């Protein structure tokens, strides 16, 4: 990239923690319920209702924080962030201000295709807070009332705030993908963007090398990005817009208040929203209704032990233990924990990591995509597929025959051996294959001449004829035999 500026991006990600009940009351967090059927006096801000902390939410927060290499302060507390909006009936959001539950970590981002260097993106903090309700705006009539659904009030969120370490839209997307993958492995959130379980805001500006030294453009917060692709597009747009605006107005950071802009995915542009209130404009103060939380070294260590294998370590393992390329390990790990487990079982049973990787990527993953099903619903177990791959590995079946066998197993169930028998695939005796090649070469002098002249493509035609005569011949072996025979052919 050769833009005349450096892009500086920090991301704020809110993920909904996978609890059954809310952060401070026992209402359900289930998505998609009828409006206002999952609320209680606390959710709707009735006087006298008191919050109590959900232990599971704190523990999920701890898991995520440890996965993100964050330090865990042994003492954390709750604060009220006050602002007035119809979807926030209490008039404040319970959040964490000066003593968050975790701080100062990092997430490593990488690109197996090498489009950027592997980098550590700093994470400033991750803290717990409650969600607000939802305003359902009347799309058609502008004068109609807004309808408010408070089901989401009090749903536990973890806000993960990165340092402004991200330097391109592509890196932003890589950070989000890696974050989502990590949280999926940790099982702390379903990260479903369509259902609002993962939301992204971006703070972005440019550092421009000008004649009088470096200039920073005003920081803009971009909201309403509903997919990782939208984040990438919005940041690309915003960088160009800020550069144009700077050339036009010369305005630098500090000249104007921080601005909030909303991404319009259809139009592909950002629109100005309200001016960002300074943080002191959300009068924060400690929530007297909730007592602080303390955690011991032993408790932290216990959670750390429970994290399981995480994406970065798994990629390393797939490369060192099973000989996969950076790219292949990334594809498999990127599919999530269930597929990784399937692969590991298959690779171990087959004893050939590369072969297992090829079949998982080309056959298993394709089937899962085509059928839109989860790994758990894949009809062929790893040990069953391993039996088939072992036949391929020792040359009992060639790849295309192997695929036919797999198709049969997928359709009819059963073992590889049963499928082989059902399909009438028989091991052809090597002597039989030699005899067949001899007959075919005798009938096709041109193929003999071509092979003698080193035109090895001619073997393809011969393989085709051999398969027609006997579908069970092994194409690789027929090829070898044909070339060898041709070279000794007595013309």
């Amino acid at each position, binding site marked *: 990239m050769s833009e005349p500026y450096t892009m500086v991006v920090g991301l704020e990600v809110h993920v909904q923690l996978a609890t059954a*009940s809310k952060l401070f009351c*026992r209402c359900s967090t289930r998505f998609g319920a009828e*409006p*206002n*059927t999952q*609320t209680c006096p606390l959710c*709707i801000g009735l006087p006298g209702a008191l919050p109590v902390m959900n232990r599971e939410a704190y523990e999920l927060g701890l898991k995520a924080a440890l996965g993100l290499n964050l330090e865990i302060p042994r003492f954390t507390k709750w604060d009220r962030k006050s602002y007035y909006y119809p979807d926030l009936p209490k008039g404040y959001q319970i959040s964490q201000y000066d003593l968050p539950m975790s701080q100062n970590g990092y997430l490593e981002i990488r690109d197996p295709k090498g489009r950027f260097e592997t980098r550590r993106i700093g994470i400033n903090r991750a803290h717990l807070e409650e969600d607000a309700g939802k*305003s359902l705006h009347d799309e058609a009539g502008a004068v109609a009332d807004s309808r408010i659904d408070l089901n989401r009030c009090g749903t536990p969120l973890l806000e993960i705030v990165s340092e402004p370490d991200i330097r391109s839209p592509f890196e932003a997307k890589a950070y989000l993908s890696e974050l989502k993958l990590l949280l999926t492995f940790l099982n702390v959130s379903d990260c479903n963007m369509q259902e609002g379980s993962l939301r992204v805001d971006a703070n972005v500006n440019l550092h421009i090398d000008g004649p009088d030294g470096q200039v920073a453009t005003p920081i803009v917060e971009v909201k309403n990005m509903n997919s990782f692709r939208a984040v990438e597009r919005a940041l690309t747009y915003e960088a160009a817009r800020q550069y144009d605006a700077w050339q036009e107005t010369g305005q630098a950071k500090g000249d104007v208040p921080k601005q909030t802009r909303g991404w319009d995915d259809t139009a592909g542009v950002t629109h100005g929203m309200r001016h960002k*209130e300074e943080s002191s404009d959300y009068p924060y103060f400690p929530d007297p209704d909730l007592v602080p*939380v303390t955690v011991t070294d032993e408790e932290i260590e216990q959670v750390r032990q429970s994290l399981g294998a995480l994406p970065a370590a798994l990629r390393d393992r797939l490369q060192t233990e099973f000989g996969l390329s950076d790219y292949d390990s990334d594809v498999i790990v990127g599919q999530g924990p269930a597929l990784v487990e399937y692969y590991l079982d298959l690779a171990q049973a087959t004893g050939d990591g590369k072969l297992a990787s090829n079949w998982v990527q080309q056959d298993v993953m394709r089937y899962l995509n085509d059928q839109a099903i989860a790994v758990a619903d894949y009809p062929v177990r790893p040990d069953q597929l391993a039996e088939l791959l072992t036949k391929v590995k020792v040359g009992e079946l060639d790849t295309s025959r192997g695929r036919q066998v797999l198709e049969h197993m997928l359709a009819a169930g059963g073992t590889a051996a049963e499928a082989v028998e059902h399909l009438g695939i028989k091991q052809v005796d090597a002597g039989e294959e030699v005899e067949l090649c001899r007959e075919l070469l005798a009938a096709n002098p041109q193929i003999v001449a071509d092979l003698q002249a080193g035109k090895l493509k001619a073997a393809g035609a011969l393989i085709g004829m051999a398969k027609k005569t006997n579908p069970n011949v092994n194409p690789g072996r027929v090829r070898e035999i044909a070339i060898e025979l041709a070279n000794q052919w007595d013309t």
Partner: protein
Amino acid sequence: MSISPEQVLKVSRLARLELSDDELATMTAQLSQVVDYVDQLSELNTDDVVPMAHALDLTNVFVVDQVAESLERSQALANAPHADGECYLVPAVMGD
């Protein structure tokens, strides 16, 4: 006086309150008295006092993550000035 009318205006805007000139004068005086009263605390030397996050000497009050019954929707909406049987109704929320 420790609080200026501008500060009161700012706080009233954050609280979505509209004050007349008279009210602004009254509020400025009263808020100043409140702040001055609390400000007496700063006469104390707190150099050796550890900041306190909570008045109770208590931590880690948790409940188990278990769903309990919510309010009936009709009950939840009962006190709302305006509702349509499913949702609370508020004047259309503009971009502000």
